[in-house]
């Protein structure tokens, strides 16, 4: 062994190698997009056809369309087995070029920058691209004509009219020339506290609606040797941020969250935010131990499936995500976050439900209208229902899955939506608009929940971050009405 190493590792070559490693260790950002700053020119070889009642987006019926789907929690079956066949049935001469990837930014970003992008892209997953930056760079197509077009299968309605409230706003950005929609946020997520209905029924525990009931129940659960409430601090603190945001909105209406989105001075120190942070901070102090700070979402979710954790703040994708870990003794159900004060402006049934999962047509594709047409197919009632069946996730197409029994968690989420009635709010957008603020909130919420529940510190920290973002001219800003 020493002979080999001796000949190979003389000092000089090692030094050279050390230097090479040093170079490689300094991530060369420039290298990561093959064509820096390219593709700024408008593409003018777009395939287009004539608009008609049957072809409202004016696609070239013979031109191929290229789509890229994120291969993640939702799978890809809804695209390959539902959307593409539906599209092909309508436009038999237009070929659909399909691919799926887990690495959206890695595969798509260079293509966007070099002006040879796919026509429709599903921007999602851990490697998703910053959509605000894409809009700002002019790489996403204006979807105004898509939403104004007639629905694919609901007669007499435009696409926009078939969607749940807030669905379009979620993908709307401020650009030169006003506020325009650039993304279809396709899946519709209901947020709340998830629990095991069977465990609760067995112990005679009922879902709390007031904070006093909530803490009283937590005491009982704790006495039973179960962690009453927990989230994963290592990589899923944003579930906790959402819980606090939801409580704040229930205390002081959604306006509280809009002020945060608009970076209004003093928005983070508003009484509603502070009250919500205070209440949740105490839950952290009393009911959660510090080990959850170091755990990951998979670990905490598994603990819940094993009845070691009672309440878990999450969204409606949870049931599908945990499908493999659910035992016959486990049945997901979801409850709204309880009212923090007795003078909350929204009722206890009020919930946060929002559209998510971005699909967009790219201006850098060669058949943008075709990409939009594919989106119009996805937004049909028939495609939406199949999507829900396949993924156990609702879509933004209103009422597409009504009357269907698909899974207990989904049914529970649907009930919660019905009970909330008009008190459903979209929530907040600062976490996607301002990534830096998002990351700061993850740290701040961990400090709040695991380091003594100092609500004032939470508010002050976030206020400072928000004002720093507001002052930073390199970050493009959005507003919300």
């Amino acid at each position, binding site marked *: *062994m*020493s*002979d080999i*190493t*001796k000949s190979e*590792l003389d*000092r000089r070559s*090692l*030094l050279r190698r*050390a*230097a*090479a*490693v*040093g*170079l*490689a*260790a*300094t*991530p*060369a*950002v*420039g*290298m*990561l997009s093959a064509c*820096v*700053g390219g*593709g*700024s020119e408008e593409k003018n070889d777009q395939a287009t056809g004539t608009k008609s009642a049957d072809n409202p987006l004016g696609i070239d019926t013979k031109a191929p369309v290229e789509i890229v789907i994120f291969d993640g929690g939702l799978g890809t079956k809804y695209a390959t087995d539902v959307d593409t066949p539906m599209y092909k049935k309508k436009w038999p001469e237009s070929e659909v070029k399909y691919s799926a990837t887990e690495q959206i*930014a890695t595969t798509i*970003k260079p293509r*966007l*920058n070099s002006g040879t992008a796919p026509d429709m892209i599903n921007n999602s997953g851990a490697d998703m*691209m*910053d959509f*605000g*930056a*894409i809009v*700002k*760079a*002019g*790489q996403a197509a204006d979807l105004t004509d898509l939403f104004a077009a007639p629905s694919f299968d609901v007669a007499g309605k435009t696409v926009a009219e078939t969607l749940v409230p807030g669905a379009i706003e979620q993908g709307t950005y401020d650009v030169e020339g006003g506020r325009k929609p650039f993304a279809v946020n396709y899946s519709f997520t209901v947020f709340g506290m998830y629990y095991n209905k069977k465990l609760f029924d067995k112990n005679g525990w009922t879902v709390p609606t007031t904070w006093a009931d909530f803490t009283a129940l937590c005491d009982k659960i704790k006495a039973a040797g179960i962690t009453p409430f927990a989230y994963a*601090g*290592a*990589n899923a*603190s944003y579930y906790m941020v959402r819980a606090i945001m939801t409580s704040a909105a229930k205390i002081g209406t959604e306006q509280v969250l809009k002020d945060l989105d608009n970076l209004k001075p003093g928005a983070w120190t508003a009484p509603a935010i502070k009250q919500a942070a205070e209440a949740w901070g105490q839950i952290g102090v009393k009911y959660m131990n*510090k*080990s959850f*700070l*170091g*755990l990951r979402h998979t*670990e905490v979710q598994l603990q819940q499936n094993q009845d070691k954790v009672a309440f878990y703040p999450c969204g409606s994708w949870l049931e599908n995500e945990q499908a493999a870990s659910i035992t016959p003794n486990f049945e997901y159900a979801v409850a709204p976050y309880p009212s923090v004060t007795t003078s909350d402006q929204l009722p206890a049934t009020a919930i946060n439900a929002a559209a998510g999962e971005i699909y967009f047509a790219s201006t850098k594709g060669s058949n943008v209208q075709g990409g939009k047409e594919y989106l119009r197919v996805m937004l049909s009632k028939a495609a939406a229902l199949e999507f829900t069946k396949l993924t156990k996730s609702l879509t933004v197409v209103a009422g597409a899955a009504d009357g269907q029994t698909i899974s207990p968690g989904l049914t529970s989420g649907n009930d919660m939506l019905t009970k909330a009635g008009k008190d459903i709010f979209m929530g907040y957008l600062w976490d996607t608009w301002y*990534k*830096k603020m998002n*990351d700061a909130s*993850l*740290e701040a919420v*961990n*400090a709040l929940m*695991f380091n003594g529940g100092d609500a004032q510190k939470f508010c002050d920290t976030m206020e400072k971050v928000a004002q720093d973002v507001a002052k930073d001219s*390199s970050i493009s800003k959005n507003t919300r009405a």
Partner: protein
Amino acid sequence: MRHGKYPFIIGFLAVPVALYAIFVVGAYLQMFQLSLTDWSGYGTFKNVGFDNFVKLWNDEVVWTALRHNGYLLLLLPIVTIVIALVFAFLLNVGGGSKGGMTQGVWGSKVYRVVFFFPQLLALALVAVIFQRVYGPDKSGMINGLLPDSWEPWLFLADENWALTCILIVLIWQAVGFYVVLFSAGMGSIGQEIYEAAALDGATRITLFFKITMPLLWGNIQVAWIYLGIAAFDAFALVNIMTVNQGGPNNSTQVLSMQIYLNAFKYSQAGYASAIGVVLFFLALSFAWLTLRVTRRDNVQA
């Protein structure tokens, strides 16, 4: 023969040089250029002069990250080298002399292979394994070994210890390679030197400090630079293992993580390039300084 030399050399060098020029030098030049722009990572950009560097100077998180890199730089090379030297000495010379040949401690052939194992694992794999080793509740490997009555140690969830946990993994992973490197070095030290020293009645400790160390100095110097550069990196472990990628409360934040976050999460590729430029010069000056400070006259055997 002689007239065929240049085409031969050029033929061999052309491809590697071209690859190096495009993928290393080219990328570097582009990074330098980008560091002076406001590029988001998408679309076009404009030049902003040294704005990114001014911003960097005032960025508290970057300073925190720099301090953490400094901590790693201080401890990673020295601890790794000391451990590796001791092991290598034990493997090669520690067993004393037998039949005129110095040899390692009993079973050193096995240890030699075992020590090298961590080097064979991909860093990402090491990170995932140690995530479980450091598990903050009873399911964690270390916590599982502790008595039941003890409160679980938090490891990566503890602000004060998280960075040290990362350091330990870095050391664990690196030691094997340097044991091999130093072993090779020790193998090249002539037997007669040890023999002569042994005849003079030198103990193992004297042998180590008076013979092995000075004759290995070149290797140690190289190891120091190599480990120092590793301390400037640490990206993979921080990215995979830590709470919120650099937390809790930025306690494991390092410069490479900041580059990654700014380039790919915050859409500030220009700013990220500026941090990259700083890191480049830091690593370079470190290597240069180390070579200057540790220069010694070569001991001729």
